[in-house]
Structures are given as structure tokens and as C-alpha cells.
């Protein structure tokens, strides 16, 4: 099955920039499968962009190996790079004085495509973006969202098997973001591409990603299929609903420390983790002591944001 074959494999990847005391990326090993969206998450400075740039060959690693569809990037750069399309974060990625059409043809030829095949592909992509009628307008005349969509189209013009999107929806409005999401889904599930995604929008990462790696201070904190990561956090996570407002605690040793408490109109929702049944009963005893009227106690469905924050704040820990 295509999904079982690693598309990108990195082993013990390390980057220490000249003059730096600590590595920006420290012995990171990852395997990214074809036909799946791989989210690379982490705070600013966690090392995501350095990893992305090493995969693209823009930054030379201090140690470790990168294999693209089995090809060693350092030894066979040309074949490895030919499989990639990349949209880098924070840059335009396009020539603003050229039209959308000219940009797509330029980047297509840069990747060895030409003639009818290139024209047909460029037309298909621009029609899909609903930009076909505006193809002869210079990119600088487009909105930010349209420019970003053309940048993604330019990245996939030569139909690469690996698409790297570094913060693809940064600064985009809801409609443009939705279109990018739709494209990412289509690229993986319909076309079998590997999409490597970095984003700070964790809801988007949760919705789109099949696998997720979380980085903190250059180290890998977790790397799992998304459902496994969420499942792990589901253990011990509870949502407790009580009527009205939760009375304030009378004691210092509050077992509800660390619980997220949200006041609603008629009820209060508590969300948190416990390490076993005894701890859960301890929480319930505390609520009874406060004379809170219980509505419901149920296992909570954690979201990626909860998992991410717990893992990053718990770092450094051994990789899960």
C-alpha cells in the first residue's frame, strides 16, 4: 500500500548553526508516509522551519541523513528535489511583476516541464482556483489569499509527490483558508501526495493531519498518528458539568488546580485530567463539599491544542 511506504525519512537530523551553543534541531528522526498529511508543530524557534529547509536542501545539516523516496538528499539532490513542491513561510514565493500564468509556466519549466503538458497543468490549476479569467493579471494585483493560492499552485505545477507547506494559511481570510484546506485534502487523499504542513493553527492541523510531530526547543517531543495522540490524551480526561456557578474553594489544597473551568449561563463546565479513579473521586468529593449540583461526568474528547500544550509544557520528556 502506498501509505506504508516512507516518502520522507530523516534520521538523527541535527543542525547547530555556526556560532550557536545549542542545536536548533537535535537528533530528530521522522518518517513521513505517502498519501498522508504530516503536521510539524511547535512554538516559534522550535526548529520546524530549520527541518523544512534541511529537507528542501536550503540548509546543510550538521549531522544525520534525509532520504526522499529512498534517495539520499545529499548524494542525489537532483532526483530528490524533483519530487518536491514547497511554499515557504513569510515569503512571496512568486514574481509579483509576472502574471499568474507566467509564474506557473516559469516555475514549471524550472522543474523540467514544458509545452502542452505544462500549459494543460497550469490551466487546470488556475481553473481550480477560479483564477483562469484573471490569469493575465500580475500577481501583485491579487489579494493576499489569491497570491498564496497561486504560490501553492506554482509549488505543485510539476505534480510533485511531496508538498511542503510552511504556514500556508498565515494571514488568509476564512474563505481562502478553506480553499487551502480543500486542496490539502485533495492532494493527499485523492492524489496520494505526501503533505508536510507546519502551522500554528492547531484546529486546522487536527482537521487535516494524519500524523503529527511536536517539537520543542529543537527536540522531538512526540510523533504519532493523530488519532493515537488524541487517544493517549483521552485516557484520564474528564468533562464535568455542574449547575450554576461553582462556589469558591475554602481550602488551599484544591484538587481542582489545573482544571479548566468555564462558566456558562446556567452551568459550569470543568475540563481536566486525573490519574486514576481515586483522583476522580477526589474531584467529585471536592465538588460535593462545595455543594455543587452535578449534571454530568463524562470522558472528555481532547483536542490537539490540549495535547500540544500538555506535551510542550511537560518537555523535556522522552519522545512518545
Amino acid at each position, binding site marked *: 500500500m502506498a501509505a506504508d511506504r516512507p516518502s520522507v525519512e530523516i534520521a538523527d537530523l541535527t543542525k547547530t548553526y555556526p556560532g550557536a551553543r545549542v542545536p536548533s534541531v537535535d537528533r530528530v528522526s521522522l518518517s513521513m508516509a505517502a498519501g498522508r498529511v504530516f503536521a510539524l508543530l511547535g512554538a516559534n524557534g522550535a526548529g520546524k522551519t530549520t527541518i523544512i529547509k534541511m529537507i528542501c536542501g536550503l540548509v546543510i545539516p550538521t549531522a544525520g541523513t534525509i532520504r526522499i523516496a529512498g534517495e539520499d538528499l545529499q548524494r542525489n539532490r537532483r532526483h530528490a528535489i524533483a519530487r518536491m513542491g514547497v511554499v515557504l513561510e513569510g515569503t512571496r514565493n512568486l*514574481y509579483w*511583476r509576472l502574471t499568474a500564468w507566467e509564474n506557473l509556466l516559469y516555475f514549471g519549466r524550472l522543474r523540467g516541464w514544458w509545452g502542452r503538458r505544462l500549459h494543460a497543468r497550469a490551466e487546470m490549476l488556475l481553473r481550480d482556483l477560479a483564477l483562469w479569467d484573471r490569469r493575465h493579471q500580475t500577481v501583485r494585483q491579487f489579494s493576499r489569499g489569491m497570491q498564496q493560492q497561486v504560490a501553492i499552485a506554482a509549488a505543485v505545477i510539476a505534480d510533485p509527490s511531496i508538498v511542503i507547506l510552511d504556514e500556508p494559511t498565515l494571514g488568509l481570510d476564512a474563505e481562502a483558508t478553506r480553499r487551502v484546506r480543500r486542496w490539502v485534502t485533495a492532494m493527499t487523499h485523492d492524489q496520494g501526495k505526501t503533505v508536510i504542513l507546519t502551522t500554528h493553527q492547531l484546529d486546522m492541523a487536527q482537521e487535516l493531519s494524519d500524523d503529527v510531530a511536536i517539537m520543542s526547543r529543537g527536540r522531538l517531543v512526540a510523533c504519532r498518528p493523530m488519532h493515537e495522540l488524541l487517544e493517549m490524551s483521552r485516557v484520564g480526561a474528564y468533562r464535568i458539568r455542574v449547575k450554576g456557578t461553582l462556589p469558591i474553594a475554602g481550602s488551599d489544597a484544591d484538587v481542582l488546580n489545573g482544571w479548566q473551568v468555564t462558566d456558562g449561563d446556567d452551568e459550569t463546565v470543568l475540563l481536566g485530567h486525573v490519574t486514576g479513579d481515586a483522583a476522580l473521586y477526589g474531584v467529585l468529593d471536592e465538588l460535593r463539599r462545595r455543594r455543587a449540583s452535578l449534571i454530568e461526568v463524562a470522558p472528555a474528547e481532547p483536542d490537539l491544542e490540549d495535547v500540544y500544550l500538555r506535551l510542550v509544557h511537560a518537555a523535556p520528556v522522552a519522545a512518545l
Partner: protein
Amino acid sequence: MYLLVLANEIHKGLLHVWRYRINFLAQLAMFSFLFVGIGFLMGRGRMDAAALPSMLVGFVVWYYAFMAILSMSSALATEAQTGTLEQAYISPAPPAWIFAGRAMATIVSTTLMGGVMAGALVLIFGLRITVGLAALPVFGMTLAGVFGFGFMIGGATLAFKRVDAVGNLVQNMLLFMNGTLLPVDHFPGWMAAMANTLPTTRGISALRAIVIDRQPLARLWEDGTLAALAVHSAVYLLAGWLTFRWCERHARQHGTLGHY
């Protein structure tokens, strides 16, 4: 693949000339005025029709050097800023070919604009210059040295970023030191020796011998002028290329390829 990359870069370069045509026309006017101003000063208040053809040959070579340095310094810095430089590196085409293509695009656009400028000056001042085929190999060798030097500046831009001031300094130094305004044999010995190390000086001298003095190519070969020019340009081209590759690696080691 390689020819496609070269043609692609030339095509994009010409599209940019067209999109920035007002800017390029203004640049043409500026260079034309510069030539007229220099001619006026050199002629001590009048345009010396006898001296102008020789000066025009030097000026046109300097103009190529100016554009080569510009395309490798500020243009490269702009590409780093817009992210298109990194996109060029994320291509199966060897970066060497992409930058060679960009150098060729600069040659094509500079030839178009320089041709218009030189043609206009020849017509306006009634200059008599005959450019035969013999000038082509000499001009080609001169350009090789010029672009070798351009690659050195380009490398410095990749590795050290803001080097526009160095580029400007070199552009101005070339104008005054490479024999554009005054043949090098009029310089004091030490200055002539220094001028002869510059990338354009020997080329200008050889081109003048062919275009102005109507010397045959064979004579330049016999007296060693061509061989010296070929070696000089080859050294510049090789040194420029090696410098560029070293600086490119430096930028990739430091993760600063896309910085500006």
C-alpha cells in the same frame, strides 16, 4: 533540461524588462546623459567627435559591467527578500545553470538596451564606428571576465547580504580606472598596472584596437593581447564561480540563503 532552464531565465528576464520598462527607459536616459556629460567634460566644454568613438567603446563595456554587478547584487538581494531565490534552489535544475541563465538574461537585456543607447548616441553625434565580426570573440571574452566578477559580487551578496555599497564602489571605480574615459597608457605606471588587473580594462583596450584602430584579430593574437585577455577573463570567470559556490555553501551552512 539545461537549455530549457537557460531559455526560461532569458524569457523571464525579458518579461521583467518589459514590466519595468519605464524604469529601464529612465535608466537608458540616465546613462545617455552620463555619456554626454563625461564627453563634455573630457572635451573641456565641447563634444570632441574624434575622441567620442573610443570613449563609447569603453562606456558600452562599462555599462555591461554595471548591469552585471547590479543583477548580481541588488537584484539577488531582492530575490532573497521575495523568496524566489530559495525557490530557485528548490529546483532539480542545478543552481549553476539557473544563475548562468540569469547572467545570459542580463546579457540579452543589456544588449537590447545598450544597443538602443549606443545607436542613439552614434546617430546624435554622427560618430563613425564600424563593429565587425572580429569584435565578437573579443567582446565575448571581455563579458566572461565581467560576469566572473559579477559572480564574486553575487556570492558576497548571498553570504554577507547588504553589499550594495561595495557594488556601487566597484561600478564607479571601474568607470574611472578601466580606461573607459582615458586609455590606460595615459595612466601613471602604478595606476596602469592596477587598472590592468580589473576585469574590463584589457577587453576595452582590445576592442578599441579592433573597432577604432581597425586592427585585424590576427595581429592581436600575434602580439599576445588576445591570449592575455583570454587568460585574464578565464581567471576572473573561474575565481567568480568558485567564490559564488563557496559563498552559496556558506549561506546554506548558516541558514541565511533567504535572509536579506
